[in-house]
């Protein structure tokens, strides 16, 4: 048999019908994640056609986007941004009940950002096909699953048929070698990769991250990397599963248990690209050269390092981006005053992200001019962080400790900045107006976010790192 990539192997195992010149493949979906924003019209479609959900046991729903991150009041009332947002959440509760879908709602100990809870529950497993009406579904590729975002029409297709019509994407190997420097995180790595291949560099491709640097990353770090594959235009990122993956999944509620787990590991272990597999594109990255990185423009490909000067604009769009950001070429970005710091999102809201930021903030206070929101990715992460006392470190430093959700990443629940404000954000998109009309977003790692909160300006985190973190 011809040498195959990891993408080939997963694709081949899920083809109900192979693609032809005139028709796409029919691809079977193992896990369908659902949230309140992109699903209501799909459930309505099923209702209108008198269809059921074909495999309710393969659907996992939660709400995260439209949900308030402030705690409910004494009467249990939640501060939704609008009645429509509240109705959208209620609609998912109705749909889940009516169609027999497992929903992690307000009563669940596992509600959270859909891309955080899938892995946390062990629902995300190697070799699976995973889809969700959400572009950051690429996150799950960290487990060696082919995971990608779909539109609402396709959400309806998967609900009704457990399948999608898909053309096979091309493969793109991103090989990262070398040891990352102190203060350089998975976020800096993926920002560096996007800056290298460009905001559309991965269009039409699935990115497979490989090499010694990737192998050394924890699962949480791998999720951060795969999460932002879409910011380079790639619908999916992939990392071959290994001992790190298996150790993460062991004993998770939805993972196979006991001997079934050992059997699964034996199968999962075969999910690697063959040594002589052909990739449509390849790029090599030297991890040792990466420095703490941030965005300076209005798309995630406009990346620079904190010790460099802001690059010159190369076209009209970049000039427009710099004008929007009030940032000048040829000047350092470090030192730019910050109004808000947001620690959260499916990119960087996991326990290790909170620990990293807390390590910087411990015994310090954020600058008087700065507001800092810390939004854990899930109820589980919130509980775990509180057990460790991280919430006290954040509160003691003057930050707000919020309920789990997407929050300021896309600002659809009312968590937004004011026009002109600058947000240092651990999220994934710095598009114009993403965090509120006129708001300027600088994407950064949790370390840069925490250091900038203390300083009151964009700041290299390395001077704040304890010996333990070094």
């Amino acid at each position: 048999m011809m040498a195959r990539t990891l993408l080939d192997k997963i694709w081949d195992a899920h083809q109900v019908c192979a693609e032809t010149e005139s028709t796409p493949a029919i691809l079977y979906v193992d896990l369908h994640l659902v949230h309140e924003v992109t699903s209501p019209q799909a459930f309505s479609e099923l209702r209108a056609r008198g269809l059921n959900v074909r495999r309710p046991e393969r659907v996992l729903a939660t709400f995260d986007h439209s949900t308030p991150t402030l705690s409910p009041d004494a009467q249990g009332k939640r501060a939704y941004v609008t009645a429509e947002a509240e109705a959208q959440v209620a609609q998912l509760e109705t749909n889940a009940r009516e169609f027999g879908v497992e929903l992690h709602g307000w009563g669940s100990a596992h509600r959270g950002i859909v891309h955080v809870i899938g892995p946390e529950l062990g629902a995300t497993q190697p070799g699976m096909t995973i889809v969700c009406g959400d572009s950051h579904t690429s996150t799950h590729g960290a487990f060696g699953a082919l995971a990608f975002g779909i539109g609402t029409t396709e959400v309806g297709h998967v609900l009704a048929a457990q399948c999608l019509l898909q053309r096979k994407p091309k493969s793109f190997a991103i090989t990262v070698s070398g040891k990352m420097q102190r203060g350089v995180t998975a976020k800096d790595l993926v920002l560096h990769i996007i800056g290298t291949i460009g905001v559309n560099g991965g269009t039409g491709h699935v990115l497979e991250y490989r090499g010694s640097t990737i192998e050394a990353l924890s699962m949480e770090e791998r999720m951060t990397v795969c999460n932002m594959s879409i910011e380079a235009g790639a619908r999916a990122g992939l990392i071959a599963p290994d001992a790190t993956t298996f150790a993460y999944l062991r004993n998770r509620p939805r993972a196979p248990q006991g001997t079934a787990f050992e059997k699964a590991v034996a199968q999962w272990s075969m999910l690697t690209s063959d040594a002589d597999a052909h990739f449509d594109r390849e790029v090599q990255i030297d991890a040792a050269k990466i420095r703490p990185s941030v965005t300076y423009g209005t798309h995630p490909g406009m990346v620079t390092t904190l010790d460099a000067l802001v690059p010159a604009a190369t076209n009209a769009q970049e000039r427009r981006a710099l004008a929007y950001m009030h940032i000048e070429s040829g000047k350092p970005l470090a030192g730019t005053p910050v109004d808000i710091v947001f620690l959260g999102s499916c990119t960087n809201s996991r326990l290790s992200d909170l620990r990293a930021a807390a390590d910087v903030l411990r015994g310090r206070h954020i600058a008087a001019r700065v507001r800092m929101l810390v939004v854990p990715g899930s109820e589980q992460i919130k509980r775990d962080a509180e057990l460790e006392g991280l919430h006290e470190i954040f509160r003691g430093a003057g930050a707000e400790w919020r309920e789990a959700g997407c929050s300021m990443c896309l600002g659809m629940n009312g968590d937004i900045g004011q026009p002109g404000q600058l947000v240092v954000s651990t999220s994934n998109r710095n598009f114009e107006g993403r965090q509120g009309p006129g708001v300027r977003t600088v994407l950064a790692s949790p370390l840069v976010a925490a250091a900038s909160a203390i300083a009151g300006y964009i700041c290299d985190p390395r001077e704040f790192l304890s010996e333990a973190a070094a």
Partner: protein
Amino acid sequence: MNPFTHLRSRSVVLAHENIDTDRIIPARFLTTTERTGLGKSLFHDWRYRADGSPDPDFALNKPQAQGCEILIAGRNFGCGSSREHAPWALLDFGVRAVLSSEIADIFRGNALKNGLLAIVLSEGEHLYLVRHPGIELAIDVAQGFIELPDGGRFSFELEPFARHCLLSGVDQLGFLLQHEREIGAFESARMEAA
């Protein structure tokens, strides 16, 4: 879906590269549970000034843009989120075709599934259209070409199944459900293998 075979319209140009889905429709308008009525929020933070009045400098607000059904957009249009609200908003506003030198994957798929033509042209052809805003274009979906006012033609390709669905008004969910036997057989084979 109604068959989509031809479109004749003047063009309107938004030449900016990387017009993301948050630009097309900001997230705060996504709390709806309907597909309709999103046209008023299309390009919201570009189209309207802070006081809510239309910005006369925005291309789609200009008198000559009224009634244009063809949008010529800069490279990498529709990057960002998977929100199908983006094509829904364009269609609700009256746009029926988006032409660019590159269109983001998820947006392109969503657009075609909703009967919004998403056409990728060469850099040179795209640049010509950007430099000639407002010209009348005639798009022939079956033959895969765009005719210019001077009779010149730009050819384009669509994924064959998407083109077939547009031309014949095929219901893609219906098409999938016709494969019930294959889907069932796939599931049974896996159960046995496990």
